[in-house]
């Protein structure tokens, strides 16, 4: 084993070990806990940068451990892995800072940060998985480590949300497991391979493969919140804001979407999947989800709930992008993985800030909040515009490529979906912005806390600003090297053009 | 010769029917005490059956253990049950030794008839002649150290079974002691007749045990039978009110109880250290070693059986504060 083989393992360990240690820390060891958290996040970031540089220069980072007699646990840093990995790593760092500020003085912090780290470990594992069983392993670990975060508050509502989350994910996990084993009995391998590993399979297996595809997508669709499997997501917003941020932008939802990308590209292969005729129904499902989520978001007064439905809608752009099955749409879908993450995390941070500082939970309470918390609301505004798809924020880039891709693939109906969705996005985001910036504030905020002369604590303010700036930057510097768009093009090339 | 065969057949059939009838009565007679007495009678009839089957060793064991000691255990338990039930008799609705005579139940009966028919058919389908392992046993009897084939099997060919069996006995005692707790020696008031009887019989019984032990090497008998007789002596002594003095009730008693298993373990270690297999006695000394094992086993079996009869662990004042 050379050093390159160790790096993926180290990436995993850099959050796993701090997490395990944190479990055993006493509640009041705040400084040590913070140090561990941040150190882990920074080390991970450094390792990831190292790998980014390496992969760009054609290095291979791969860890293999035997798991079952003929199956290995494979961690491999390919371009697609790295895209998701980088996103999670950066956002973990940011969210950690945010969570430290957010959970100041609340109980059970060791437990929280322990599971928090486990959750990131699982996400990173999902990103690095080199075959389907490794993916499955981390996917389930993700379920287990997020459940305590969802129910962290311990209230009755939280308990019910947790239950709903579990019912959905356990059920989904079972389907995924079934699909995976079945696939394995047919092929004898589960290794992620560009353009899939099913091409050699005979004609007689087609019906089975269609069912397997459905099983896998159903299993992943639970986490990716595809309609009608989305029920848990709006409920799960009772979790603390950093958790929601993580759930919606990085960990759970993204893992589902990422899994769908993996299944279509590296298990079935785009062409093979299209040949099976399964991508088109998926595209329709994604389109339905996009419209449905947007419509539901329109009628939510609870801010986090509105954002949750927005997530349902937005994540399906990724699914849509890969289901269109063309090179340009792929770029749009894959790059949206990153863009949506940055924008949505910004929005959730801001929602958390409003709740924590002023006790605002509902849209109707937000009148004039722009004057009280200008920085927060600026970040929020950037995120919201990104979601709508207005240039120059990153969201625009995704939608642009999706639209182009749909045209290129001859699926014009997608344009209407995109346009409709954008309109709806505008319809549920613009009123918020209008209320926040242009309406008179009420007499008193529901529950105000003061932080000296700042609008809120620096640990709460900094993260959304950073992510908002990044979202902006990715939109404006989309053609720079190492930009998400660049990577997405790199990935698309590999899937479609390389022999 | 004809007449003798006919006589044998008549006898065997009557014996078989008697066994079945007694078995049925044991299980259905409404009075529990009767049932136990019938069970003892059943045991004696079984002993007769063993004799008819050319199994004198088992006949001895059955008479001593199956009928004798089990009967004693059952009767003692029955007596204690009476006392216990009397203490709990609150509403006076206690079954006084009577079972609520459950009516005949058709489903289990039918099911078991089918089972019995199936098993009976199976048994009859077995080959009419089969030598089993008798050829191997007689071929190796010479080198086993004893000439009674049953003893050879028990102590040599399948000595390992016997080792484990000693442990079963010990384990039963451990279980009984663990469940029923300990009791201080009681002062019982034995009647003069029983007292005399036990005084007279105990030495005889010990002698008989020693004889059975010794004779087991070449004739029916052996450690289990001897141990059972020894146990009977213990039961008699216990019945007449004798109790182990509390000086001996601790470690000394325990040492005797484990003497059998310990002898086996020691033998196992010894045989393996001298380069043999587990429990492979040197051929020349096999007879002596077997006698040694049997002596220890007899002591343990007798003591254990008597201790099982007593039930509670004799308390030693110094232990378990």
């Amino acid at each position: 084993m050379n050093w390159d083989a160790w790096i993926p393992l180290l990436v995993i360990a850099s959050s796993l070990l701090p997490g395990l240690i944190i479990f055993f820390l006493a509640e009041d060891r705040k400084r040590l806990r913070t140090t561990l958290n941040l150190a882990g996040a920074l080390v991970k970031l450094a390792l990831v940068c190292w790998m980014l540089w390496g992969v760009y220069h054609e290095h291979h980072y791969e860890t293999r451990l035997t798991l079952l007699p003929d199956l290995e646990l494979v961690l491999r840093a390919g371009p697609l892995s790295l895209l998701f990995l980088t996103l999670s790593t950066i956002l973990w760092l940011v969210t950690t800072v945010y969570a430290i500020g957010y959970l100041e003085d609340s109980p059970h912090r060791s437990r929280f940060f322990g599971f928090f780290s486990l959750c990131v470990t699982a996400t990173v594992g999902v990103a690095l998985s080199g075959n389907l069983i490794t993916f499955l392993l981390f996917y389930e670990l993700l379920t287990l480590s997020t459940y305590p975060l969802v129910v962290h508050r311990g209230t009755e509502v939280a308990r019910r949300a947790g239950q709903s989350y579990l019912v959905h994910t356990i059920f989904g996990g079972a389907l995924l497991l079934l699909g995976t084993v079945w696939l394995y009995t047919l092929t004898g391998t589960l290794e992620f391979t560009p353009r899939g590993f099913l091409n050699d399979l005979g004609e007689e297996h087609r019906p089975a493969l269609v069912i397997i595809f459905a099983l896998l997508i159903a299993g992943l669709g639970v986490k990716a919140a595809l309609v009608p499997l989305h029920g848990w997501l709006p409920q799960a917003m009772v979790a603390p804001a950093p958790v929601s941020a993580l759930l919606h932008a990085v960990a759970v939802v993204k893992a589902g979407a990422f899994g769908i990308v993996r299944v279509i590209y590296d298990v079935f292969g785009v062409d093979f999947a299209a040949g099976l005729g399964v991508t088109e129904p998926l595209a329709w499902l994604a389109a339905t989800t996009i419209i449905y989520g947007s419509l539901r978001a329109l009628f939510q007064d609870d801010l986090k709930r509105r954002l949750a439905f927005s997530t349902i809608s937005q994540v399906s752009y990724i699914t849509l992008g890969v289901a269109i099955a063309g090179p340009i749409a792929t770029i749009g879908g894959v790059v949206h993985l990153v863009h949506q993450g940055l924008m949505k995390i910004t929005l959730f941070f801001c929602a958390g800030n409003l709740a924590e500082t002023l006790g605002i939970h509902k849209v109707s309470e937000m009148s004039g909040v722009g004057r009280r918390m200008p920085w927060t609301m600026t970040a929020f505004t950037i995120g919201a515009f990104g979601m709508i798809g207005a240039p120059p924020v990153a969201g625009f880039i995704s939608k642009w490529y999706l639209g182009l891709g749909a045209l290129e693939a001859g699926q014009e109906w997608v344009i209407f979906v995109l346009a409709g969705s954008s309109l709806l996005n505008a319809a549920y985001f613009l009123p918020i912005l209008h209320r926040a910036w242009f309406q008179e504030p009420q007499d008193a905020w529901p529950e105000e806390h003061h932080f000296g002369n700042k609008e809120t604590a620096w640990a709460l303010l900094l993260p959304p600003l950073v992510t908002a700036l990044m979202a902006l930057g990715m939109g404006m510097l989309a053609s720079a090297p190492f930009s998400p768009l660049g990577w997405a093009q790199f990935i698309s090339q590999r899937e479609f053009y390389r022999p | 010769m004809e007449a003798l065969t006919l006589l044998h057949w008549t006898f065997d059939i009557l014996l078989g029917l008697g066994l079945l009838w007694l078995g049925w009565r044991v299980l259905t007679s409404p009075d529990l005490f009767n049932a136990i007495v019938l069970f003892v009678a059943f045991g004696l009839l079984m002993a007769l059956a063993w004799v008819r089957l050319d199994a004198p060793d088992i006949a001895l064991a059955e008479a001593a253990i199956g009928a004798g000691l089990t009967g004693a255990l059952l009767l003692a338990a029955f007596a204690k049950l009476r006392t216990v039930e009397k203490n709990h008799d609150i509403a006076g609705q206690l079954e006084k030794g009577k079972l609520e005579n459950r009516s005949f139940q058709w489903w289990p009966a039918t099911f078991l008839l089918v089972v019995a028919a199936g098993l009976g058919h199976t048994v009859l389908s077995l080959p009419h002649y089969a030598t089993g392992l008798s050829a191997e046993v007689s071929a190796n009897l010479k080198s086993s150290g004893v000439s009674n084939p049953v003893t050879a099997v028990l102590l040599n060919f399948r000595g390992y079974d016997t080792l484990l069996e000693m442990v079963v006995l010990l384990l039963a005692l451990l279980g009984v002691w663990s469940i029923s707790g300990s009791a201080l020696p009681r002062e019982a008031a034995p009647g003069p007749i029983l007292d005399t009887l036990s005084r007279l019989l105990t030495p005889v019984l010990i002698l008989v045990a020693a004889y059975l032990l010794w004779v087991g090497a070449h004739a029916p008998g052996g450690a289990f039978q001897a141990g059972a007789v020894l146990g009977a002596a213990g039961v008699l002594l216990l019945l007449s009110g004798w109790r182990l003095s509390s000086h001996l009730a601790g470690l000394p008693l325990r040492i005797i109880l484990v003497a059998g298993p310990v002898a086996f373990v020691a033998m196992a270690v010894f045989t393996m250290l001298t380069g043999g297999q587990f429990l492979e006695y040197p051929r020349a000394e096999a007879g002596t070693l077997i006698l040694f094992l049997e002596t220890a086993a007899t002591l343990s079996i007798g003591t254990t059986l008597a201790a099982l009869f007593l039930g509670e662990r004799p308390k030693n004042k110094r232990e378990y504060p």
Partner: protein
Amino acid sequence: MNPSDYLSAALMIAGAVFFLAGTLGLLRFPDVYSRLHALTKADNVGLGLVVMGLAVQAESWAVVGKLLLIWLLVLLAGASVAHLIARGALERGIKLWRR
């Protein structure tokens, strides 16, 4: 069959008669005490006769000794147990049967 065979047969049949009588008594007599009476007397003598009948056939004096020992032990046990049963019955308050 030689004379000794006849002798032992006669003795054993006589013994069997005693056993039969004793058993009949056990079944038919009205109370514990009279049943014990029938049982012990009959069995002791009956067993004695059977032992004698067998002793006639014995091959050595040692065997005769063993047979006698059996008889003695049964006598001892029978007597003691009969006594214990009778005493137990008395202690339980079982009354003597009177016509």
